[in-house]
């Protein structure tokens, strides 16, 4: 959709969602230093336009898979700031009952299949979800987010080949933030234009400005329509940049402050805000209302996480298997 098609309310919804991710993650970083959140924490700050643009173009019946940098996708998919924050606390109110943490947000009821923390490991899963949809006659598409680093993995090529060979409705959404952890794309890819690779499998692919939420929404909407109509997989290379460190333990020795600063001038939230102000769709009052609204939601999420109980110790083994053997005859 164009900005005109989105309209003022549609545009405000996108702005609010991007700002929610930004403020939520800023709070996460703060809570990490307070040791409320532990383990690995990978922030999405700078890349919000992709999750928000892409997920606003999908339906509730579509499947979504993401990486360990998935807070933005989970929020935009509607898992709820409260259950997500509680998951990071490791509490019973978490979307994965405290068993996942930051890297493994999961909510099958929203068809959100992780939060997958092995680079590239979830690409075959996405192809499998799409295979099941095709075999069962469901008209869903499967959106699979991954980074430029994943394109070096063997399963990347296996997954693209099989999705194309079997004409499966998969959207491969590559968030190219120019670094595989701390290794620049020039150092990990023989051809840095990733969108050329899927074409070798006959998969239509294009590069999109991942800092432009409207451009992302439009590209994903077109791609999803094609995949939904049985035209096979689509691939988008979404150009973006991670403003913060890879994780909380990263001194960022591999890139210059000047480079980071240059990209911050293309902050997706500021770009979109500017576009809305130029339209006369946003003024200081409206902006302040969105800000307060989002901060209120983040505060409520923290409260929810704080008040949520811990999982009962006796439930440790409860979900290792979906049902214990012996509860039935012959496993039927």
């Amino acid at each position, binding site marked *: 959709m164009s900005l005109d098609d989105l309209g003022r309310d549609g545009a405000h919804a996108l702005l609010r969602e991007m700002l929610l991710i930004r403020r939520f993650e800023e709070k996460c970083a703060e809570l990490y230093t307070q040791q409320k959140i532990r383990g690995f924490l990978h922030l999405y700050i700078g890349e919000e336009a992709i999750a928000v643009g892409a997920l606003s173009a999908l339906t509730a019946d579509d499947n979504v898979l993401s990486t360990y940098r998935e807070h933005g996708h989970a929020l935009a998919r509607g898992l709820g700031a409260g259950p997500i924050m509680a998951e990071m606390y490791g509490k019973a109110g978490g979307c994965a009952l405290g*068993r996942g943490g930051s890297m493994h947000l999961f909510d*099958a009821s929203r068809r959100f*299949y992780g939060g997958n923390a*092995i680079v590239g490991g979830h690409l075959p899963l996405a192809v499998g979800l799409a295979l*099941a949809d095709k075999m069962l006659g469901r008209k869903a598409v499967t959106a699979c987010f991954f980074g430029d680093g994943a394109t070096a993995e063997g*399963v990347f090529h296996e997954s693209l*080949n099989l999705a194309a060979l079997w004409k499966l409705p998969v959207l491969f959404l590559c968030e190219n933030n120019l670094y595989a952890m701390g290794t620049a794309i020039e150092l990990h890819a023989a051809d840095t234009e990733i969108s050329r690779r899927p074409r070798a499998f006959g998969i239509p692919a294009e590069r999109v400005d991942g800092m432009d939420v409207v451009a992302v929404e439009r590209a994903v909407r077109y791609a999803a329509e094609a995949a939904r109509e049985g035209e096979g997989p689509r691939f988008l290379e979404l150009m973006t940049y991670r403003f913060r460190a890879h994780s909380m333990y990263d001194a960022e020795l591999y890139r210059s402050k000047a480079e980071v600063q240059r990209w911050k001038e293309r902050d997706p939230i500021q770009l979109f805000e500017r576009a809305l102000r130029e339209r006369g769709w946003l003024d200081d009052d409206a902006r302040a209302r969105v800000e307060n609204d989002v901060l209120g939601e983040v505060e409520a999420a923290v409260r929810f996480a704080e008040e949520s109980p811990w999982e009962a110790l006796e439930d440790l083994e409860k979900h290792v298997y979906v*049902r214990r053997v012996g509860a039935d005859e*012959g496993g039927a």
Partner: protein
Amino acid sequence: MREIRYREAVREAMLEEMERDERVFLMGEEVGHYQGAYKVSEGLLARFGEKRVIDTPIAEAGFAGIGVGAAMTGLRPIIEFMTWNFSFVAFDQIISNAAKASQMSGGRVPCPIVFRGPNGAAKQVASQHSHSVDPFYTNIPGLWVVMPSTPRDAKGLLKTAIREDNPVIFLEGETLYNVKGEVPDVEADEAIPFGKARVAREGDGCTIVAWGAPYYVVLDAAERLRQEHGLECEVVDPRTLRPLDIETIVESVKKTHRCVVVHEHWPYGGPGAEIVDQVQREAFDWLDAPIERVAALDVPMPYASNLETLVLPNVDRVIEAVKRAAYL
């Protein structure tokens, strides 16, 4: 009852379950047009068509993971590895995805998938094609690990595996495909539950635990021990290594007071060591001798016939171990 081969038993289980439930499908290398590298899937393509008998490229990580994804959203895939040696390429998909689906979803997403194929040494196929993978997969909570020794167990346990809602590692004996044995008629629809060991031979002289190809080595050894030493051994086949029916093994040891565990995997760790550990704690006061183990020797499998024979458990090594345990 009729007599069929182990290979046919595996095929019958797949065929019957595919007829019973249209969500079940078979996917792997050479399962369709080639009719299976070991002819286990012979005829299934003609019977069920390309939609349910799917030939894949040589891409184990890809098709294993695709199976996991399909299982998480409503299908019941059977993934055939041409041999379990090739599953190492797909290890991440099995360990990080299949075995974690339930835990990561808080018990809300079942992953009803069977990974199956031949396991263990064949004949002179050397170091990269002779693995017994039992120790790798039994270590993983979230997986069930099954290794049937007889045609009847192969069929009955595979039917259970296909109906199970958790991922199952189904290890077939590469050298057992031609073994013949009695299997109930199709109408019996026998599904053998997991976690139930089978006492294959009764005796009070020494308990021998064995599964897979060594199971037959042990039966031969037990017969010779009876003839040559008058010792009646009790042979217990666990059938499923996870869950493990330790109760049946311990009950037997309480009767015989001696225990030998025979397996084809390497001696360091694995289900062999796990059984020894559990028996010594559960039956400590009943044991009259240290528990013995007979395993593959601790080397990558050599190609040369004489060396390979030396590495694998054989009747003489089993007899020596039983004699040590029985102070004969």
